[in-house]
């Protein structure tokens, strides 16, 4: 038995400890973020705006020493600024002093960050109105569009078969993705995995792996797999499969995270075990969103499959690549027309199906 005075102290202590701890953590975060903000502003203003735009230097001189000096400077400025509790990051993490100085610095600095980012972006993109309206360019565009609007129907049969191949690639990738995605989604749903340390670690590791896979575009996966299993539809299918699993596992697990907690609580209160809770309280709530995501993904995969063909993933994309390489724009016109038509149809059908099941 714990004696009385201890128990009375205990919860208050936890509360104040938690508050102190979170304040400290927020300050550390604010310091780091401020250092980044300051460093970012200095680099952007100095390199992109001053050297590149104002002095018009083409090949910027680069030295690690210079970057290092700038970084050290930002560490001092950023830390001092965050510790004064008047910086933008302090405001973001809710630990800023509530006075006029804070209000002004935060507002001005936020606008400053946005402005230099926009200006630097404009410079880096090399935006040029002139080249859109140059005579030579316009003539080329006219030749190309002219050819494309008079498509060559002689290759219609071949294009049709290639198109069907593309649709099948997308379909098979989507179908095969379903079982692994289902299993993964339960292991990457926070609300199911947060309870103990082991499951939370699994959740965390899987999340990182899936994020990594998803951040690599299917186009890149297709390049990898066309080296691995050889150029052709199979490479395209695997590329789509990998990306579909990673993306849909995220969507599915978000659906799981968004379920009503009530039924889960109720089933858990009957003494059901974890598997039974998932099967009887979670699964009935997520079947429809899962179905809807999968159908939508098939639609996306058809579009992606056309692109993947460009790097040797088979189907209509490969065909498009070949004719484009030969500069036969009439044929290219036909292929683009077909892709547009099929994508439009798929879009329509998948929207209708998704509407119907809800």
């Amino acid at each position, binding site marked *: 038995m714990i004696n009385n005075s201890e128990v009375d102290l*205990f919860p208050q202590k*936890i*509360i104040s400890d938690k508050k102190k701890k979170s304040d400290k953590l927020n300050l550390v975060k604010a310091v780091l973020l401020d250092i980044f903000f300051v460093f970012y502003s200095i680099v952007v203003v100095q390199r992109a705006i001053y050297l590149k735009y104002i002095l018009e230097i083409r090949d910027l001189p680069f030295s690690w020493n210079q970057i290092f000096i700038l970084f050290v400077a930002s560490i001092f400025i950023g830390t001092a600024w965050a510790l004064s509790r008047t910086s933008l990051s302090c405001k973001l993490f809710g630990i800023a002093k509530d006075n006029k100085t804070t209000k002004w610095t935060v507002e001005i600095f936020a606008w400053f960050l946005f402005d230099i980012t926009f200006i630097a972006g404009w410079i880096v993109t090399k935006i040029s109105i002139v080249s859109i309206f140059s005579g030579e360019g316009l003539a080329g565009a006219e030749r190309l569009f002219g050819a494309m609007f008079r498509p060559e129907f002689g290759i219609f049969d071949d294009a049709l078969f290639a198109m069907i191949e593309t649709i099948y690639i997308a379909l098979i990738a989507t179908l095969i993705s379903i079982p692994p995605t289902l299993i993964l989604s339960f292991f990457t749903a926070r609300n199911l995995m947060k309870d103990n340390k082991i499951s939370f670690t699994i959740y965390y590791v899987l999340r990182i792996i899936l994020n990594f896979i998803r951040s690599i575009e299917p186009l890149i996966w297709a390049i990898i797999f066309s080296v691995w299993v050889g150029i052709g539809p199979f490479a395209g299918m695997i590329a789509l499969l990998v990306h579909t699993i990673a993306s849909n596992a995220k969507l599915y697990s978000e659906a799981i995270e968004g379920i009503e907690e*009530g*039924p889960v609580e*109720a*089933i858990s209160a009957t*003494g059901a*075990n974890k598997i039974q809770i998932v099967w009887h309280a979670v699964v009935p709530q997520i079947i429809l969103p899962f179905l809807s995501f999968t159908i939508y993904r098939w639609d996306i995969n058809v579009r992606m499959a056309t692109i993947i063909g460009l790097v040797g993933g088979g189907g209509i994309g490969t065909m498009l690549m070949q004719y484009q390489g030969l500069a036969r724009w009439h044929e290219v016109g036909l292929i683009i027309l077909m892709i547009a038509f099929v994508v439009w149809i798929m879009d329509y059908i998948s929207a209708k199906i998704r509407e119907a099941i809800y």
Partner: protein
Amino acid sequence: MILEIQNLHKVYNNGTHALKGVSFSVKEGEFLVVIGLSGSGKSTLLRSINRLIEPTSGTVRFLGKDITHIKGEELRKIKSQIGMVFQQFNLIKRRSVLSNVINGKLGSLGTFNSIIEKYSDEVYKEAYNCLDIVGIGDKAKVRSDSLSGGQQQRVAIARSLMQNPKLLLADEPVASLDPATSNSIMQYFERINKDFGTTVICNLHFLSLVRRYATRVIALKAGEIIYEGAPSDINEAWFKTIYGEEAEEVEIR
């Protein structure tokens, strides 16, 4: 004593101190009602009893056994002996009434059989029996979200009856129902309490219902017990202490 609670504290992760040293005990066969404003800790208290949440300190004894910090199989066994009914019914919407009721039995069914939904005839018989007790045996095959609120709550009661509970917890079971339906739902709790001798602990808002059904009342305010006694002893003064000076009693019949 079926339930003994001693010096129970609960501090949530966000720092909310929901229970501040609550102690009381419940005899077998009692109909205990917990009253108090929203946020006074009523729901936290009930959820600490069947361990949907883990108390921060203090002890909960159920049938003489300390269940405050038990885990795993042991915890599931205790949970399966305590039924719970919720304000929002918490049925599985797209499933039939019958399968919702059978869900109450999950604690004592095998994992595999419960997944392929292969249940023995006895389980079905029991489920129909529970539905008959709450008077909706004819709705067994209907999808549960097609029922009215009162009927859904009766299904939820039937689900908890499937557990053959020694203790039945009800977290504001009538708060989202109309007055007439509220009364009929409370009558089912009364019948279960009297006919089967099941101990009932119920969170309620309406004092007229409290006076009618409770054998004993506990009032919580800001996580502490400020009143414990017979329902008939709650007079105007107590009422104002529990619900604040501004409050006025609303009658529902």
